[in-house]
């Protein structure tokens, strides 16, 4: 494994742009919501969690598939989906990835490596195992990567899938984004044990805890897990500790004293990477600014195009159940 400095030198510029794209993509939705947009439904944003998206989904190869939760824009973007078609889906437009049938919680594009998002917490985890099983049987060398929240770690679907993945020695990397909350409930208040990453061990899935606000660390641990998976050595569970800056969904930022304090934004993954690059003389701060300007420009255009697209024809609701 390359050392940290080498990685930053090699990938820093790209990561900065990718992190910024995710951030700006979501900021635009947040701003739109704040402005009282009447065309925007509920959106669950992962602002603050970008390093998981980029560190995990940014290094997948063609044929790998992720399944994501209700809070999945970041990993989808990092996997390479088109922001315009994502916005269009979020806005219920005909040009969206699912023709407006899915919305923010159900964006999918299997052809580009996003097998599906989910409205059901934990619901997409078993599917990712099946993806890995197919990859193994067909010898493609690909992996299935379920990305889910800390809340999903308390679902039966998660535990059952851990076990079956271990039994099948399937090329799965389980990625838990522990952002400290499930909706409005602090993770610690409803989650037993010394850490979600330890939950795999009893099922035969080794676990790793990683600073999920450090894109380098996430990248490194994900790379190791991918190597294991592709080498036929079985599944790994990665717990990425991160922070959800916004409310559960936009417009819903309720905090409650000690039980649920407003989150700190100290760990900002973009600022951290930029600072590290600065220290290495790689001009992180300047590049971050440039990246933001560039993202803004592209994503504003994407948003505009999405808004300009028509709504789907009502009759299209009647088709598409069966082949």
């Amino acid at each position: 494994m390359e050392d940290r400095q080498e990685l930053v030198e090699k990938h820093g510029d790209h990561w900065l742009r990718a992190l910024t794209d995710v951030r700006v993509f979501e900021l635009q939705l947040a701003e739109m919501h704040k402005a009282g947009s009447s065309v925007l439904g509920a959106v669950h944003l992962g602002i603050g969690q970008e390093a998981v998206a980029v560190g995990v989904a940014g290094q997948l190869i063609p044929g790998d598939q992720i399944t994501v939760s209700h809070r999945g824009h970041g990993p989808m973007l990092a996997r390479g989906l088109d922001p315009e078609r994502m916005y269009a889906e979020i806005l219920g437009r005909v040009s969206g990835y699912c023709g407006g049938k899915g919305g923010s919680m159900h964006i999918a594009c299997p052809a580009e490596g996003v097998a599906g998002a989910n409205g059901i917490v934990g619901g997409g985890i078993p599917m990712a195992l099946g993806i890995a099983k197919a990859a193994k049987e067909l010898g493609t060398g690909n992996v299935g990567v379920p990305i889910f929240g800390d809340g999903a770690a308390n679902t039966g679907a998660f535990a059952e899938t851990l076990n079956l993945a271990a039994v099948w020695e399937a090329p799965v990397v389980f990625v838990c984004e522990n952002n400290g909350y499930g909706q409005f409930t602090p993770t610690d208040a409803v989650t037993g044990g010394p850490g979600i990453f330890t939950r795999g061990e009893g099922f035969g899935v080794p676990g790793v805890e990683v600073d999920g606000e450090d894109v380098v660390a996430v990248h490194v641990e994900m790379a190791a897990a991918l190597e294991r998976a592709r080498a036929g050595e079985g599944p790994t569970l990665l717990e990425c500790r991160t922070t959800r800056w916004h409310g559960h969904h936009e417009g819903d930022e309720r905090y409650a004293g000690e039980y649920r304090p407003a989150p700190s934004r100290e760990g900002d993954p973009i600022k951290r990477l930029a600072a590290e690059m600065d220290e290495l003389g790689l001009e992180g701060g300047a590049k971050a600014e440039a990246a933001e300007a560039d993202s803004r420009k592209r994503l504003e255009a994407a948003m505009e195009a999405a808004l300009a697209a028509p709504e789907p024809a009502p009759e299209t609701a009647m088709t598409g159940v069966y082949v």
Partner: protein
Amino acid sequence: MSSANQTAVSPANRLAPAIRDAIAQQMRGDDRVLFWGEDIRTGVMSTSQGLVDEFGPERVIDTPISEGAFLGAALGAAANGLRPIVEIMYSSFFYVAFDQLVNQIGRARYMTDGQVTAPLTVIAATGASGFAAQHSDASYPMLMNAGGLRIVFPSTPHQAFWLTRAALRSDDPVIVLNQPALAGAKGEIRDEPMELGDVEVTTHGEDVSVYAIGLMAVRARKVAKRLAEEGIGVEVVDVCSLSPFPVEAIVASVRRTGRAVVVDEARLACSAASEISATIAEAAFDALEAPIERVAVPNVFIPYAPPLEAHVIPQEADIEAAIRKVLA
């Protein structure tokens, strides 16, 4: 501690607050009532809002996202001296806990020949609210078929208050459904108690019976009002109790009018609408003067984009068209 027998009518005049008030009254009167579910301290669903302030986190308990475990736990707790209330945010989430709900809670009493009594209430939102296919099912037909559960689905604050109250006082497992779109629906709570199993004829008319559930009942009433101006007498039977299935009350209205339209936000196949229609075709055939029309969600899923969602969910125009059809 105030008496469990007080009959104070709720001051709320909106639907979700009426449910919450019925819960609060019951919790005040009975320490054995605990309320658990996801994010209920925050009151994500308006049916739990503010309860933690009065009753504290020992009785208003945030759970992990483990619907199966906490529903199943409610069975054990209810059978052993507590009277738990469980919130499941959306009735689509019943599916992750379906075995516990239908194969454990619903039949523990029968299988043990009456040895288990499980006084528990499940509160859940049901129906579409912009969250697309996986959140939006009107899932009560499956629960009606599963058996063993009492199910009510109020469409007015009055029904909401009294049926929730009755649910909480019942010694059976009861599911109280509520429609997000009606959470703020206004209406007076009259001092006329309702019981589990009651349906309510909310509009009287002589020409056609419209059986409708939840938001569909609200829409049916609007249509009835409009058609009344045309001189068409629409009787709206608000089927606010779904299980056990209220056969007699269903049959009574169509016996008077001779025509029936059934409106349901569930998918058509094996829906509550189908059950109502089949019941009429069996028990009131001789009174029927026209085919029984069902207006329900076609056998697709609730799509996200608003124009798509509106297309598959019965609208007032659909109800009106069905009424005119059976009157033609």
